[in-house]
Every structure is written in structure tokens, then in C-alpha cells.
């Protein structure tokens, strides 16, 4: 089923996903520049390296579906259709920004577009997403809410309370853990009780799966399955996307807790490079397939042609 859903994405949709991944990367690279030149206040948390997660997950949504986001939220907002102009204006604290300059990077929201806000509290969106799913259920709608959070939020109490409630009420919510390996300096493998956090879903009686968070199509297929389940009234799921943030937690991160070799190793799995390479290979494969099909369908030469073309 998941495969079929994934295949059902049109070339235009795939192209749009690639474009959004580039958009996220360039948006956050530019935000880093703006921060360093003093145009931004507070802090900024780049999503660079994690683009496949937001884009793959949001590709599984309809416009009326909702998301909740995190402090590292630019990618989620762009993937759910946020306007980069209004986001950038918000980063610069301008009156034209999404929040009229009152929220900044960590509070960008567009409720009408289903973006129920980035969130400055780790795990702060988990209960909100679960509540939005409850509202959809109460209103008799089949809208789904995607709840993005990081590995750091795995150990917040609200996740336990919300997951239990979502399970007993079969709420249409998909919990998407972006395991980017670090919560500030805290390594997920040292600070979370299990190396594969998706197993925690078993404790609540709903599916927990992991996927390659550097592979946008893997994220899409996995989340599309969970969304289909939620939309059908079968309740929540947990999807853990294994990914990596290329930059520090925010600008000014001393980055003394990981080494360059580790970062470089992850960069070899770059989600944009990979998707582009996969797209190119797929296009070539399509062309080769067409060539094979053409060849197979073509007629054998007639015997009469035997002596043709020996001389002009």
C-alpha cells in the first residue's frame, strides 16, 4: 500500500518536493547569514541536513491537515506551505511577518494553513497536536495532525500523557520524532533509554516504526502509511526519522560534543543530493525502460532487407 501511495506522486509533486528541500536549505543558510550580520535577534535553529523529514512527511498531507512544529521549525513551515517572505520578515522582527514581529523564529505560525506554530518549549507541540486531532475527531472531520518533535522531547512527560490519550481515544495524530542524534549536547543514544525509540509505541499499543530520515521518499512512504491509518480512524502512530543536523543547535553552539568526521560521514548521505541523484537515476531509468520497450516492441527486419544498404 505504501509503495502504491509513493508511486502515485506525480512528477510535478516530486519536483515540488525537491524544490522545497532546496528552499529550506537556502532559507536557513540565509537566516544564518542574517543572524551573523546582526539582522536577527535571539537565536536561530537551522534545519539544514533534515530537509527530507519535513518535506517527505508533509507530502503525505492534504491542505486541511495540520502540523505542530518545534524550535527548529523553518523546514516544517515551508514544507506545509508557509510563505518564505512572511517567515523571513518575522525573523527580522518586521510588522509584515507572520506574527507581526512579536514571535520571531521560534513562534512562526499560520493557523489557517494548518501550521499550529513552531514552539519554544521542547515537546510543547505534542499536546497541542493531540488536541487538534481531538478537535478534528469531535467535528467529524478526517483531518490528520502531524506532530514534529526532536529526540530531546522523547523524554518529556507530555509525550507519555498525550500518547496514552491518543491511543485510548484513537486520535488522528502522527507523532514524528526527528532523531537528529543530539538535544543540544545530549546524545540520543546516551540520554534515551532505548536506541530505537520507536519501540516505545508498543507501550501505548500503536505502531512505531523508524525510517531513513535522509531519504525523502522513505519518509514519505512511512508517514503516508501512518496518515492513512489515522485518517481511517485507526488511531495514532509513531514514526522515528533518523537524521542529522549539519550545524550546531543554534548559532554559537560550541560543538565540542561531536567531531568533524561524524558530520562528514552524515553529509555523504545528504538528503538533497540523494533525492536529486535518485531523481536523475529514475529519469535515466525511465529513458532506458522506454528504450527497452521501444526495442522489444520494434519489428524484426524483413528478409527482403538482406541485400539493402550495401552500397549507396
Amino acid at each position: 500500500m505504501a509503495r502504491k501511495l509513493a508511486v502515485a506522486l506525480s512528477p510535478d509533486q516530486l519536483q515540488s518536493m525537491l524544490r522545497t528541500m532546496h528552499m529550506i536549505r537556502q532559507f536557513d543558510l540565509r537566516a544564518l547569514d542574517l543572524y551573523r550580520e546582526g539582522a536577527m535577534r535571539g537565536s536561530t535553529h537551522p534545519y539544514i541536513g533534515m530537509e527530507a523529514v519535513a518535506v517527505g512527511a508533509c507530502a503525505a498531507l492534504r491542505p486541511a491537515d495540520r502540523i505542530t512544529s518545534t524550535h527548529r521549525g523553518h523546514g516544517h513551515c515551508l514544507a506545509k506551505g508557509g510563505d518564505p517572505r512572511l517567515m523571513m520578515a518575522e525573523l527580522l522582527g518586521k510588522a509584515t511577518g507572520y506574527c507581526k514581529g512579536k514571535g520571531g523564529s521560534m513562534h512562526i505560525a499560520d493557523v489557517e494553513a494548518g501550521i499550529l506554530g513552531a514552539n519554544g518549549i521542547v515537546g510543547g507541540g505534542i499536546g497541542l497536536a493531540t488536541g487538534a486531532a481531538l478537535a478534528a475527531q469531535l467535528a467529524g472531520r478526517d483531518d490528520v495532525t502531524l506532530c514534529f518533535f526532536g529526540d530531546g522531547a522523547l523524554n518529556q512527560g507530555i509525550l507519555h500523557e498525550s500518547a496514552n490519550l491518543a491511543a485510548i481515544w484513537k486520535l488522528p495524530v502522527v507523532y514524528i520524532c526527528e532523531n537528529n542524534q543530539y538535544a543540544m549536547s545530549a546524545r540520543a543514544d546516551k540520554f534515551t533509554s532505548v536506541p530505537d525509540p520507536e519501540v516505545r509505541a508498543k507501550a501505548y499499543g500503536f505502531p512505531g516504526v523508524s525510517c531513513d530520515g535522509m531519504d525523502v521518499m522513505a519518509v514519505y512512504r512511512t508517514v503516508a502509511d501512518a496518515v492513512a491509518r489515522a485518517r481511517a480512524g485507526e488511531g495514532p502512530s509513531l514514526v522515528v526519522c533518523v537524521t542529522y543536523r549539519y550545524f550546531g543547535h543554534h548559532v554559537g553552539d560550541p560543538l565540542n560534543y561531536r567531531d568533524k568526521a561524524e558530520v562528514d560521514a552524515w553529509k555523504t548521505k545528504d538528503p538533497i543530493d540523494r533525492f536529486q541523484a535518485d531523481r536523475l537515476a529514475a529519469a535515466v531509468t525511465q529513458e532506458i525502460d522506454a528504450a527497452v520497450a521501444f526495442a522489444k516492441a520494434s519489428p524484426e527486419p524483413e528478409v527482403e532487407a538482406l541485400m539493402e544498404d550495401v552500397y549507396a
Partner: protein
Amino acid sequence: MSRPVIETTPAPAATRVLTYAEALNEALREEMRRDPRVFVMGEDVAVWGGGGVFGVTRGLVEEFGPQRVRDTPISEEAIAALAVGAAVAGARPVAEFMYADFMGLAMEPIVNQAAKIRYMFGGKASVPVVFRAQEGAGRGNAAQHSQSLEAWFCHIPGLKVAVPSTPADAKGLLVSAIRDENPVVFLEHKILYNTKGPVPAGDVAIPMGVADCKRAGRDATFVGVHTMVHKALAAAEILAAEGIDLEVIDPRTLVPFDLDTIVASVRKTGRLVVGHEAYERCGIGAEIIAQVITAAFDALDAPPVRVCGENVPIPYNARLEAAALPQVEDIVAAVHQVVA
């Protein structure tokens, strides 16, 4: 869902005598009938005793079903957070906390989410949620089930805070709280649930931010909440026998706060006593006095006096509990002090 009409048309005011709990129940029932988006969630609000530990939600599940009257697990943070998320997504939740003390577990979604979402999002979201809880001492529930914590919530911009003292106020304010586009912390008092009073029938909302003069008087102004209103009325009878005429004002909501009514009273009497069961230190009484002094220093003939809970955890023993709480005689003594 169609958008319901929310204009209030006062019905012909047939007035009955109801308990405070019955009045709250009537407000919930009428608002749930009026607006299908309104729903109730909390611990033991549906099944226990037919609806709620104090009976406030009694019979609601029979009329509205378990979808709209939801018993929850013991998960206070999630109760608050789901209510906030549901409100942002178009529902109108009334979330109940069995005891205000338990709201300590839910402060993150109340303080960091509900109170701030509208502002953080540039005014482009509404959070029409009511957080109901009961507070107060007097039943030997001891330190973790007896506190009056209204000041916590008054401190946070973005929250409204209601503290009704009578059945009529309880109904009218809860109706307004449910219709409000903002998060409202609606604090009831456990001792008041069985008190009775006249309550107008039908759709009668009491606006937030309008104080009520419970007793007119010339010589001193008392401003207090919950049980202190009733204790002040009792004190006023004692004082009247001495020829001292006490005015008793119930602000009814602490945010928004009807300073004008209180300043007008102080301009008449020149003397102010404030009272609450909550701990005196950093209680709302300090804020009320500060606001009155700033607005009407010239009108005061004596320093204002607070009659408040002692700065101590509420004890279990009846004699100690009574000593921790402000009593009628404390109000009489405070009024003597300001009129001296």
C-alpha cells in the same frame, strides 16, 4: 459545523434558588446545548457519581454523550495541552482540574501555550478554552488540596481569571468564560459548592471585568474573593451593630479587574481592607492595594490593610486550619484598624 449565534438575549428572568454547583452545571448544560463546539474534559467528570467529584458536571454525559463529556486519565498536563490544541483548532473546550493544586502539573500548556499563542502568532489565533478548577480550604483536605492559587494565573498576561462567590455569579461568569475567545482560568471554591442563592433562569451572561457591590456602606471598603465575600458580609453585620457601615465589593474577575468600581468606593469611604484565603505574600491583595494607591492615594484616610491566609502550607488539623485562614473576626479587626 455552523457558527452559532452568540449574542446574549436576556430571558425573562425567572429566578430560582440553586446551589453554586447546580448553577455551574446549568451554565455548562446551556452552553453545550447552544454551541456544539463546547465540550467538557477532565478526571471523573462523566462517570463518577453521575458527573464530577463535586457534582458540577452531573448528568451531562447522559445528555451530550461520552464524546463531549470526556473522562480522562490522570494526566493534567495533557488535559491542559489537548484543550489548548483543540481550542486553536476550532473547538471550545472546558477542561476541568479536580483541584487547583493539581494545576501545578499543567502550568506549561497554560502559561507558555494558552496564554501566549494569540500574541506570539501576531493576533492570528484564538484560544477559547476554559480551565475550571476548585480551590480553597476549610474541609481538612490539607496542604496539597486546599490552596488558593489565583495569583499564579493573574501574573500571566494573556489569561483571564474568574473567581465567583455566589451561584448567580458562578453561572453568569461561566457562560461568559465559555464564550470568551481567550483562555479563562475559572476558579471555584470547594466550600461554596453547596451554598444556595437566587439564579436567573435562561441565557444570562455576566461580563468579565465588572465588580459587584454585595453590600453598600459608607465607612470602609472591603474587597475580597470567594469565601471572603461571605465572611465580610458577616463581619459587616457585627460592625453595623457598632455603627460602622462596611461596603463589600466582589471583583468577580481578577483579570480583567474593575478598578473603577473599587476606586469609586474608596473615594466614598476613604478606607480599604482587602481579603483572600490565598497566602498573603504576593497575593492578589497586594496588587489591588497597589492599584488603588496609585489611582487614589489622595482618597485614602488610612493605610490599607490585608486580611489573608497565613504564609504557611494549609494544615490538616481543624484548629490549625482555621488559624491559617482569615476569619470574620480578622475582618472586623482590620476594619477597626482602618477606621480608627
